[in-house]
């Protein structure tokens, strides 16, 4: 006498409960389509509602359907409204970590230009080779590798690389890196480098950008 069947989640009435089921995970971190398909679907359907809601918190929803990830970002600060505290904290990064992030971003761009695979997987040795020439030449190889391992751990904590299960020597550069280390961030980095160079050299060299 009774039959049950599933229908789409596009019910017009968005109860606050539905919204919180999506917003709370977003506040906690990145949502990947691959990791949680149900949540992803709900997010895509409730997109507009989520945008409105997080706007109240001074946040902006970044959703990349092609790459399958979404996260919240602090909205560009309004110069008129000063003093709104940030909900999403900014993490301070040391120079080698910043540089390594930039180099990994480059590797990702090259990787995308070169082939069809979506997963960029590097061995620790490759990462060492990537950054080695930018660090002071030293004789202690193992110390260098340890240091780079520490930097990689830091980057893993930020969520941009992850070590492969069962093969700690291999890391995957997560594609979300593209969204954070973008042209804006890189040109800031470039500018910082130029400033730093000026400071240390004490010369009157003018920066070229």
């Amino acid at each position, binding site marked *: 006498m009774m039959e049950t069947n599933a229908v789409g989640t596009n019910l017009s009435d968005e109860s606050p409960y539905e919204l919180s089921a999506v917003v709370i995970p977003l506040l906690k971190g990145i949502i990947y389509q691959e990791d949680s398909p149900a949540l992803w679907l709900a997010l895509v359907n409730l997109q507009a509602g989520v945008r409105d809601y997080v706007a109240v918190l001074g946040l902006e929803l970044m959703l990349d359907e092609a790459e399958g990830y979404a996260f919240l970002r602090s909205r560009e600060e309004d110069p008129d409204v000063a003093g709104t505290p940030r909900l999403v904290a900014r993490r*301070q990064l040391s*120079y080698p970590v910043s540089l390594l992030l930039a180099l990994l971003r480059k590797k990702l761009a090259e990787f995308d230009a070169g082939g069809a695979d979506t997963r960029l997987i590097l061995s620790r040795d490759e990462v060492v080779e990537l950054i080695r020439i930018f660090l002071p030449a030293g004789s202690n190889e193992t110390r260098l590798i340890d240091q780079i391992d520490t930097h990689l751990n830091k980057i893993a904590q930020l969520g941009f690389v992850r070590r492969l299960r069962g093969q700690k020597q291999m890391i995957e550069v997560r594609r979300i890196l593209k969204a*954070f280390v973008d042209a804006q961030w890189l040109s800031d980095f470039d500018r910082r480098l130029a400033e730093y160079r000026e400071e240390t050299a004490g010369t009157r060299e003018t920066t070229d950008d």
Partner: protein
Amino acid sequence: MNFDYNALDHLRQTHPAWRLLCAKYAPLTASFLHRVFIVPNVRILAEADLVEALEDELFVLREQMGNDAFPGSARSYLTDWADNDKGWLRKFYPPGTDEPHYDLTPASEKALAWLEGLTDRAFVGTESRLLTLFELLRQMSEGTQTDPEARIAELKRRRDEIDGEIDRILAGDIPLLDDTALKDRFQQFLQLARELLTDFREVEHNFRVLDRRVRERIALWEGGKGALLEEIMSERDAIADSDQGRSFRAFWDFLMSQSRQEELSRLLEEVLALPPIQAMQPEPRLYRVHYDWLEAGEHTQRTVARLSEQLRRFLDDQAWLENRRIMDILHHIETRALALRETIPQGDFMSLAETGADIDLPLERPLFRPAVQNRITETAVDEGDAEVDTGVLFSQVVVDRAELSGYIRRELQMRDQVSLGEIVARHPLRHGLAEVVVYLQLASEWPWTTVDEEHRERLRWRTETGRVREAILPRVILLRNG
């Protein structure tokens, strides 16, 4: 192809197939790869499976040839074979797994096919090949004939031939293929069937090369974006519209048709049952060779679809512009960073937004509580004799009957009758189907209930995982009183 000394020398040094044949351990490599990839028609193998298979192989060989026959470990051989300077295996990480996977490269498959061809065949049929050649020529000349007269004349000629054949058979003259002719054709079939299977890897490889070439062109493009897009998109899809892509699609459409598959199965079965063919002892796998084609073709199909999609993503407006800019900026950064390498900045240098808002409520932290010390005492466990209703264990979802009947009563205070659907609309279901069942139970116990079989109602609810489910049932109406 250039066949002079230098070209061949270069080929011997660089081509993976030739290098495989020259390799010291070629018999090991070839026999192993043939056994695990070619014989079972496997495309993708996980590293662990491959290592295990190779270890078994090495174990057997060492039994025969002494312990120091093959010095390396299975894993080291695999790594070596997948290395760029060998290129016998393609190593890659499929999405969603951290384990490397392997597939044969087309080059090593070619070497294996050549080795297979080395062994003498019982006889070489030439008649069937000649017929195949004729057929191909006929198709080409006919398929490009634009003059309708000529086409019709050709068709008529063939119809006359068929009519003649029908007449001859009616007259009792049935021409039969003799055994030799049959074997000849079967051998030809075998060879083509196997080659087709071999070709898939090459087709896939060609698609990859094509994809890479398009990407290179994009990456090195100096002009405006519009011109590039025009060039690439003028072919609707760079990969699918290539010669390779079209031929493959035609093949695929042909193979995918239900009637073709049935026809293939039927013909294969009939042919393989013929006594002269049985005498040749064909491999049992031949019965399902078209499924092998399907399997291999599907793999290629998926690769092509994925390549096309990723290429589109790569061409995507923003990513494209951003990538160019990023490479420019990175060039700057590298130059500057190199200049700084003896005096690298200490302390914090850049900042980056975190990936989530870390909401840390101080009051949520638990207060200090001394750790509970578990004292383990020895007590003999006695069998109890209490009568316990074990049914409780099975009714973990608690639906409050009193609450539900309260809803019904409240609705009926305002009007004379109410349907189940209306009640549920006002009081959303929280326990899903279980709650619906309780409602039905309540309705059956209600003194004045009618069921309207003519009309149906939908009850909807959302499960814990966020999916919406619905139940369709006849309209149940509850009345205040008779």
